[in-house]
């Protein structure tokens, strides 16, 4: 029953403490929201991975189904889905991001 795309996603989510599925690369984000998300995590100084799914419609579809979230970017922290900066910004304002990342990186 293993769907290869879903398996690939599970592996990626498990491999990176902070993972962004977005459009483009860190050097050249192809979408304003992806850029905002990169800038968001740049502030914290923890390593994060950006996976470009701009040209992978099947993977985008699988991600949308899995998270019940239609848009990119999609952020996973420590294996859990956190939406995008619409969710992360209010969390940061409440001081919830720093402890979450500390815990994720075992600090």
């Amino acid at each position, binding site marked *: 029953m293993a769907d290869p795309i879903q398996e690939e996603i599970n592996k990626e989510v498990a491999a990176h403490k902070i993972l962004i599925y977005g459009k483009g690369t860190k050097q050249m984000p192809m979408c*304003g929201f992806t850029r905002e998300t990169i800038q968001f995590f740049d502030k914290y100084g923890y390593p994060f991975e950006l996976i470009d799914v701009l040209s992978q419609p099947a993977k985008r579809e699988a991600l949308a189904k899995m998270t019940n979230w239609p848009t990119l970017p999609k952020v996973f922290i420590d294996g859990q889905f956190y*939406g995008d900066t*619409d*969710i992360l910004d209010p969390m940061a304002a409440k001081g919830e991001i720093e402890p979450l990342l500390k815990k994720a990186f075992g600090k």
Partner: protein
Amino acid sequence: MITPDVLTEYVRKVMPDAAVTVMDRTGTMNHLKVVVVSAAFAGKNLLDRHRLVYQALDVPMKDGRIHALEITAQTTEEA
């Protein structure tokens, strides 16, 4: 592009009490910031609140009338 009235209609199909504010981020009326205030958000976390808004705007997002969307979802008490 989509007008604020049409967008509001879509939201109210799912949340009839919703107060909707639409801001145009790019001057093209397809990169939007939308503030939705509704009692439907009570007891829901942010992810589920946003899922509700995405669900309401599924049609204009899929057909491209809305290209990018920034959401604020609040209950009446929070607004």
